[in-house]
């Protein structure tokens, strides 16, 4: 297996370069080598971008490794740079490494040459990938923004509690508020009927989506706009709900149109009732009205635009009683046909493109003048051209598929079934049907676009989480080194390794130590929560005894509680079954909850109790304190990421607001749930459940109870 490797030798000796080449050829590389020994030649070679690795002699008559490194840096080239030298001492080598060389090798010992090159090629590839990923992230953020802004509908995203997290310009103009004003406010407060808006959100959360949900947006100045609201939920990589993506379309005009139609139908009915002679017609109208209502319902529930049109085409033919029906949908620029559906003849073929019927004068009239065209006993109108099977045509009825603002295409009915004429009645019916179809088509298109957008958001969201995860890992790693030095020297002083300490300096150093430990916890939490978001937090559940888990905690927390003058007890009934849990992660949950309890309690007691849950599937654990409690307002928010209690005692610092969020994530990963009960001023109790046996169809077959008797 030969790999091609392009080597740039910066080397004055032809012989030495040949030596290296031989080494690499033996390792199976297909070599393309170039040798340079002066800066100008090296610059030209780098500009040509024709090498994968630079092997550089340490000193040459006209050049040296440090200048070569400077040149590489100046040209912003990121290639493995390896110094090969016969003379260089360790100190000089270290200096070169500091200047950016990746490694150095001795000419008389080239055993490491191949592994070093391979490793550095790999590293360079990693650096390249990282840079590319960072650029992509920037790009994808912009892309998401453009996606939002290019939409003609008012778009908004909310978190699962209905708080707006993003909006586009259309939403700004509809609501009269700026984006900054809207973000962070409850979704429902921008509607005339907040309760209905809230129901809408509940529906989305229940079903994953909601379609054509009618709402009235109320702007800052009190203007009201009727909108049709379509929304779907979107999740992160781990399938955890992130929020709701919604689009609101202004349907004020459409509503008016529908109302007019309804009134017209009513008038028609009244007119019919007036004349006894038209009893028969009344009956027929009654029938068609029923059919119409049914069709309306059918269309309302149809999601796929093409399927919807095909149903519509056949239903229209049936209701009006024509031999053939055709339905044409215009392309987005309006001068071609996107779909043509034909109904009522055998072997129907789409109309061929060299005779696009959109250019027939009758069809143009329908589209351009937006009106119904009815022709009976036609002879010289060249209507055969329209017939899918070239049969002669005597009667024609065509109506535009038209919403309040746009024409989407036409509905054409050919040849009244009984050989008679299309009536005024038929004309009205065609017009109503076409309007219904236009609305349904519009909705189906909107819904399809919405799904596409949501999928797109899902994807970019996942990419962003991945990038964030990498970024936070990197940052937390870099923060740990200085923190480590602070911690080390503080403990050196406290341990008396630099001489005796007075009581005051000791007290101050203890404060430094306490804070550095807190900082360490925070960095850990930060990494943890980012990992959770990227779906990378994993657990390894195994049969675990809660009592064993409590043991080490008891000592630590008894001492800490005693320092504050608080009682502390953990009760663990001996008949408690084993649970299926990751002991480390469970310990983390307990520590987090107990730290919180300690933080908010100044007197009284903290207690941990556990018992088998009623349903026998879980053990339920309660961590109760007699602290300041949680207000009713705050209760639904306390598991949110970055939630910080307003009641934090003066003496203790606010945390990052990640502890409970991580607890929730960990408990849910185990298959349990976590909740809190509290009244302000009366303490709080956090409950959570841990499964006794495998939840759903996991890979573990263990049942905790089998090992109960030990």
């Amino acid at each position, binding site marked *: 297996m030969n790999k091609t490797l392009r080597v740039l030798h910066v080397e004055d000796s032809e012989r030495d370069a040949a030596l290296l080449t031989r080494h690499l050829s033996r390792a199976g590389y297909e070599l393309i080598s170039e040798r340079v020994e002066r800066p100008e030649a090296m610059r030209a070679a780098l500009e040509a971008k024709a090498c994968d690795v630079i092997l550089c002699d340490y000193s040459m008559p006209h050049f040296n490794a440090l200048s070569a490194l400077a040149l590489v840096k100046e040209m912003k080239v990121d290639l493995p740079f390896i110094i090969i030298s016969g003379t260089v001492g360790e100190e000089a080598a270290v200096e070169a490494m500091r200047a950016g060389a990746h490694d150095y090798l001795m000419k008389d010992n080239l055993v490491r040459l191949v592994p070093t090159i391979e490793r550095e090629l790999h590293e360079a590839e990693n650096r390249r990938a990282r840079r590319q990923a960072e650029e992509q992230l920037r790009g994808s953020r912009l892309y998401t923004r453009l996606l939002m802004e290019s939409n003609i509908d008012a778009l908004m995203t909310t978190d699962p509690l209905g708080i707006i997290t993003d909006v586009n310009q259309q939403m700004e103009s509809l609501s009269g508020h700026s984006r900054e004003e809207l973000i962070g406010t409850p979704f429902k407060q921008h509607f005339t009927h907040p309760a209905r808006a809230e129901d809408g959100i509940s529906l989305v959360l229940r079903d994953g989506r909601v379609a054509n949900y009618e709402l009235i947006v109320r702007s800052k100045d009190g203007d009201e706009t009727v909108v049709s609201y379509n929304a779907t939920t979107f999740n992160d990589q781990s399938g955890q709900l992130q929020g709701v993506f919604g689009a609101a379309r202004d349907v004020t005009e459409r509503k008016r149109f529908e109302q007019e139609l309804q009134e017209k139908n009513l008038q028609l009915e009244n007119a019919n009732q007036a004349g006894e002679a038209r009893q028969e017609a009344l009956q027929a109208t009654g029938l068609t009205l029923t059919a119409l209502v049914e069709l309306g319902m059918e269309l309302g529930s149809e999601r796929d635009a093409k399927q919807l049109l095909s149903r519509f085409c056949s239903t229209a033919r049936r209701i009006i009683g024509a031999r053939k029906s055709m339905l044409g949908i215009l392309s987005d620029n309006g001068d071609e046909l996107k779909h043509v559906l034909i109904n009522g003849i055998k072997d129907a073929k789409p109309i061929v493109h060299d005779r696009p019927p959109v250019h027939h004068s009758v069809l143009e009239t329908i589209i351009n003048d937006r009106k119904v065209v009815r022709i009976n006993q036609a002879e010289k109108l060249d209507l055969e051209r329209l017939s899918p099977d070239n049969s002669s045509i005597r009667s024609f009825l065509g109506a535009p598929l038209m919403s309040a603002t746009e024409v989407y295409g036409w509905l054409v009915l050919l040849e009244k079934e009984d050989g008679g004429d299309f009536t005024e009645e038929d004309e009205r019916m065609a017009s109503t049907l076409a309007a219904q179809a236009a609305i349904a088509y519009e909705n189906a298109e909107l819904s399809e676009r919405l799904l596409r957008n949501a999928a797109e958001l899902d994807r970019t969201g996942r990419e962003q989480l991945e990038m964030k995860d990498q970024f936070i890992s990197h940052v937390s790693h870099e923060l740990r080194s200085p923190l480590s*030095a602070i911690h080390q*020297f503080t403990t050196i002083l406290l341990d008396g390794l630099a001489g005796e300490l007075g009581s005051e300096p000791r007290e101050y150093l203890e404060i430094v130590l306490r804070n550095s430990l807190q900082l360490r916890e925070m960095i850990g939490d930060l990494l943890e929560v980012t990992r959770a978001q990227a779906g990378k937090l994993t657990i390894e559940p195994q049969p675990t005894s809660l009592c064993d888990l409590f043991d080490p905690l008891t000592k630590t927390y008894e001492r800490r509680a005693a320092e504050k003058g608080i009682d502390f007890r953990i009760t663990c009934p001996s008949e408690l079954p084993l649970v299926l849990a990751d002991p480390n992660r469970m310990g983390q949950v307990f520590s987090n909850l107990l730290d919180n309890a300690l933080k908010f309690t100044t007197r009284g007691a903290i207690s941990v109790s556990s018992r088998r849950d009623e349903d026998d599937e879980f053990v339920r654990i309660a961590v109760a304190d007699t602290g300041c409690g949680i207000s009713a307002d705050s209760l639904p928010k306390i598991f949110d990421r970055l939630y910080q209690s307003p009641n934090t005692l003066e003496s203790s610092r606010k945390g990052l607001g990640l502890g409970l969020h991580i607890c929730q994530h960990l408990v849910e990963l185990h298959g349990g749930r976590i909740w809190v009960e509290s009244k302000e001023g009366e303490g709080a109790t956090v409950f959570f459940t841990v499964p006794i046996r495998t939840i759903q169809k996991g890979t573990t077959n263990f049942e905790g109870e089998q090992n109960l008797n030990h």
Partner: protein
Amino acid sequence: MKGNKILIIEDDADLRRGLNVRLRASEYETAFASDAIMALSIAKKESPDLILLDLGLPGGGGFVVLERMKNIASLACTPVIVVSASDPKTNEQRALDAGAEAFFQKPVDNQELMRAIQRALLK
């Protein structure tokens, strides 16, 4: 125990110094290296009884040092304790697989580190 020589391979001068104070206080002898290249030659010259190794080193990284050490007969049996700022979830197992005795994440609990050093020296 006392008088054993420990080589500190760490590129951060402050952390090097801090560990030095710690180890000297427990009456260990110390030697230092601040990058991957110096690490091996110093290790060969000093033949320490134990090595504390940082992972993020200039000139190759701690894993490279660890790997090469295990291939040098005179160093192959010297216990190595990794002290790194990196995430134990990604690096601890890898370090142990490469032959390290233990893995500590910075900032370390000094008592635990001292215990681990004693244990490793007793082996």
